[in-house]
């Protein structure tokens, strides 16, 4: 499925993945800084709303937390950086305070396509039931269930 918004090409590789592709008329270096320099992030990430960057440790395992002050209230977003490859790729977890415990893995890739332009591809992976079903189909769950059934029996005996 492909949707085209004003400037993005949006595809859904699976029910739990959203891939958004967009070309910016700016160098990789500028785009990279826009994603990794807190002062610059504050300028655009809030979509016109005031954005407070409480934490932003751009390194593997680093914590980030942004608070957006929107007309409908205050929204906190946070997560951890999983991968930071300068000028190329950022992978981080993304969690909204409004959906606690619901984690998205967000990967942003930059590609120089010449003429000072950069392609940005964001792939977001959701933890949903589809992923669970995938595990069920792969047979891993069966093995795990058997192990846990055995454990349950053992625990019942030793209660």
């Amino acid at each position: 499925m492909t949707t085209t918004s004003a400037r993005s090409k949006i595809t859904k590789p699976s029910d739990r993945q959203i891939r958004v592709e967009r070309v910016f008329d700016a160098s990789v270096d500028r785009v990279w800084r826009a994603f990794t320099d807190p002062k610059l992030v504050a300028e655009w990430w809030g979509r016109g709303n005031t954005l407070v960057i409480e934490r932003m440790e751009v390194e593997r395992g680093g914590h980030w937390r942004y608070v957006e002050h929107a007309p409908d209230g205050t929204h906190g977003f946070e997560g951890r950086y999983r991968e930071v490859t300068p000028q190329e790729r950022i992978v981080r977890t993304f969690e909204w305070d409004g959906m606690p415990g619901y984690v998205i893995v967000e990967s942003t890739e930059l590609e120089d396509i010449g003429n000072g332009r950069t392609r940005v591809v964001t792939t977001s992976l959701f933890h949903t039931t589809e992923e669970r079903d995938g595990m069920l189909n792969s047979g891993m769950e069966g093995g795990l269930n058997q192990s846990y059934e055995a454990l349950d029996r053992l625990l019942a005996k030793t209660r």
Partner: protein
Amino acid sequence: MVQYQRNLDATFAAVADSTRRGILERLGRREASITELAQTFEMTLTGMKKHVRLLEDAGLVRTAKIGRVRMCRLGPRRLADEAAWIGKYQKMLDARLDSLGEFLERTKGDDR
């Protein structure tokens, strides 16, 4: 209305606890037995049963007995929430990229 309020209270109470939020996150990945959850969160079966019951009362988790094992998966409310959240997230992401495009346009002179 009263019923709705009760559901809302139950939902907030259910997600107010970090262990229960962890359980939802875990079940979002795949279903699990009470025993498995108890192990993952290093607590007793009795303790885990209490957490699961609260989540079940709020409609966030659904459980079913399969043989001797009680399996837990996300409940109807959580699944509806998920679908709405995915839609909302996508719109938000697109709006942020619009905003990034405007920012890069606005700061073009800064490109050395």
